[in-house]
């Protein structure tokens, strides 16, 4: 029998196969949208009827949140990408073959990410994340330009090493679990592992976590493992940048969280918190400084993604009900905001015909809607109220300062530096006399403003159901 859980996997898989065959980008683009919409609906149904988790697939409060977020952003991005790809085809940057390939890959990516999220088996999860990485590698290189290939290659090599490290960690977890649980699949199943984690061998778990932290941390884009991220964002098609920042990073983070829970349950093991806090702080501050010398608008926002991932990892590393809640909220808000920003940036790049910040200016004059959309997005991402990210940053900082004042101060420093970097550029991009061509952007602004609307609402009012869900998860994460 096929329940919703299987649905979120089968629909993208089928769509991928279909899209690989169908020619012509208009129809396929629509099909792409339909497929993602269906996936979204199926995912949403998870909240209504929760299927029982088997030994390979699993659904609980934690990954429900992630799945719905993934499928939602996947949907909106597909809407955006429909118009975006259309423009790319007309401008001739993409050939029909590549468009077909693109859509197939898009669905494959969706499939891989969903699989990683619902996998109840650490091995399966690893496979899924590898698949997701490879598909994104191919999409990053899709323009076949010198820079694109270079970015893809960099991503590929670093990604592969990350994958290898993650695998080694996975094996170690299995080794730790086997004496307790016994041989076979059972020793790789989340639901089982969690129950018995307390009796695992701590030393093995420690080594395992180190490898997993680095392996999946590479995907999360934590400094100093981040190198692939800015280029991949900058050179790939914008929808992919949106998906990368909005989703793939989260998926890797999800894996990390699972293993953190595992370690947290084991009294003998090293506390995962401090490691995550350290890497989070490094990423946040480092990325903040990197914002200042950026000449490419997409690369700049890629670095801001690193910064926010740092904040999120920091929050989860701190742990505790408030911090975990804040981490989840921040992750959600960041996904929505950052993808919205990338939508805007995609339109900008198409209007101005460039990604060079120096050649973009006065958007609020030349393209008011687009310009103010970007301003709103940056205001949100910089953590200014009344948008959602302010709430999460408020919770993270205020809850941290009471416990670890200095950490909070460092974090605040990073956030301030980042704010400075973002608004320094925004001043020239959005305001002042218009620069560059001012073509009409014939794209749909719906996805962008939909995301921003959600972020805005969340900043003012959060539905109790959502809050309750988040709080459960926060408790789950300990």
């Amino acid at each position, binding site marked *: 029998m096929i329940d919703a859980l299987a649905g979120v996997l089968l629909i993208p898989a089928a769509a991928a196969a279909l899209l690989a065959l169908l020619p012509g980008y208009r129809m396929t683009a629509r099909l792409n949208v339909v497929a993602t919409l269906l996936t979204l609906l199926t995912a949403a149904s998870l909240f209504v009827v929760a299927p029982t988790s088997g030994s390979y697939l699993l659904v609980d409060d934690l990954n429900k949140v992630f799945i719905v977020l993934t499928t939602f952003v996947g949907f909106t991005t597909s809407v955006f990408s429909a118009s975006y790809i259309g423009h790319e085809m007309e401008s001739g940057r993409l050939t029909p073959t590549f468009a077909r390939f693109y859509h197939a890959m898009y669905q494959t990516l969706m499939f891989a990410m969903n699989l990683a999220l619902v996998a109840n*088996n650490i*091995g399966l999860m690893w496979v899924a994340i590898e698949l997701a990485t490879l598909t994104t590698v191919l999409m990053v290189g899709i323009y076949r330009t010198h820079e694109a290939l270079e970015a893809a*290659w960099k991503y*590929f*090599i670093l990604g592969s090493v990350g994958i290898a490290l993650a695998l080694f960690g996975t094996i170690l977890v*299995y*080794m*730790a679990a086997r004496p307790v649980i016994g041989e076979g699949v059972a020793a790789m199943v989340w639901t089982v592992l969690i129950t018995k984690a307390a009796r695992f061998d701590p*030393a093995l778990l420690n080594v395992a976590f180190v490898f997993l932290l680095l392996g999946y941390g590479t995907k999360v884009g934590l400094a100093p493992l981040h190198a692939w991220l800015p280029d991949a964002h900058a050179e790939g098609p914008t929808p992919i940048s949106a998906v990368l920042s909005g989703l793939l990073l989260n998926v890797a983070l999800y894996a990390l969280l699972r293993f953190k829970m595992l370690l947290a349950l084991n009294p003998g093991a090293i506390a995962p918190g401090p490691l995550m806090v350290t890497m989070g702080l490094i990423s946040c501050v480092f990325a903040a400084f990197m914002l200042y010398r950026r000449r*490419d608008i997409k690369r700049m926002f890629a670095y801001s993604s690193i910064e926010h991932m740092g904040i999120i990892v920091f929050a989860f590393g701190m742990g505790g009900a408030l911090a975990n809640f804040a981490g989840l909220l921040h992750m959600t808000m960041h996904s929505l905001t950052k993808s919205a920003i990338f939508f805007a940036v995609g339109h900008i790049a198409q209007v101005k015909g460039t990604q060079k910040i120096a050649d973009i200016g006065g958007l609020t004059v030349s393209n008011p809607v687009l310009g103010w959309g970007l301003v709103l997005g940056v205001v949100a991402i910089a953590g200014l109220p009344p948008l959602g990210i302010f709430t999460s940053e408020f919770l993270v900082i205020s809850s941290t300062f009471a416990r670890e004042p200095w950490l909070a101060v460092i974090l605040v420093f990073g956030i301030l530096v980042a704010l400075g970097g973002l608004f320094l550029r925004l001043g020239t991009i959005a305001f002042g006399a218009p620069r560059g061509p001012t073509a009409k952007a014939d794209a749909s602004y719906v996805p962008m403003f939909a995301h921003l609307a959600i972020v805005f609402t969340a900043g003012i009012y959060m539905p109790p159901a959502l809050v309750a869900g988040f709080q459960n998860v926060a408790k789950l994460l300990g």
Partner: protein
Amino acid sequence: MLRGNLSFDVAHLLAGSLVLVSFMQLYQDRLYALLNIFALHALVLAASVAWQAFIQDAPHLYLTATIALVFKAIVIPAALHRIIVRLGIHREIETVVGVGPAMLLGMGLVALSMVVMLRVTADADPLAREDLAFALSVVLLGLLMMVTRRNAVSQVIGFMSLENGLVLAATGAKGMPLVVEISVAFSVLIAFIVIGIFLFRIRERFDTVDVQALDRFRGERQ
């Protein structure tokens, strides 16, 4: 009992020799020789996997062994051999740090992996424990190779020996599912890398496969 001891010793021997071969790789400064040593690496791995298959009587591991043997010991080296010929870079490998320091670093890494792994309480069976220690050192040595060699072929080799270490660990982990799938997946990954090198060669975007040339354009350098 005797079998237990024997099986342990053999496995231990094979794993240890894998580490040894990794050191030999570090020692090489000719591409051809490096290729051959890597083939040897794969060979030893195949043997050890096969042995594991035998003592765990897990037939599916034989498949992994075969993959290791055929794909890594024969196909890939051959392919890389052709690349080297094509690119005419069979002269020498320019290393970042000299062989001596590389060896010393390697020693340090092995020692580190020992220290880390022997922390593991003995109730996890010694076989696994020793295997892991060796596997970890192989992984680290492979990574070391990747970062100390400038040219792409040797980096690919480094990556593959890293991955050999993974397979060693995976097979050493008694009764671990998905081992075969994983090794297959990795072979695909490596194939991608090799193809990538071919691809860049064929499209003649980069005049050499020296990784530095590969990212001559880096991000925003104007």
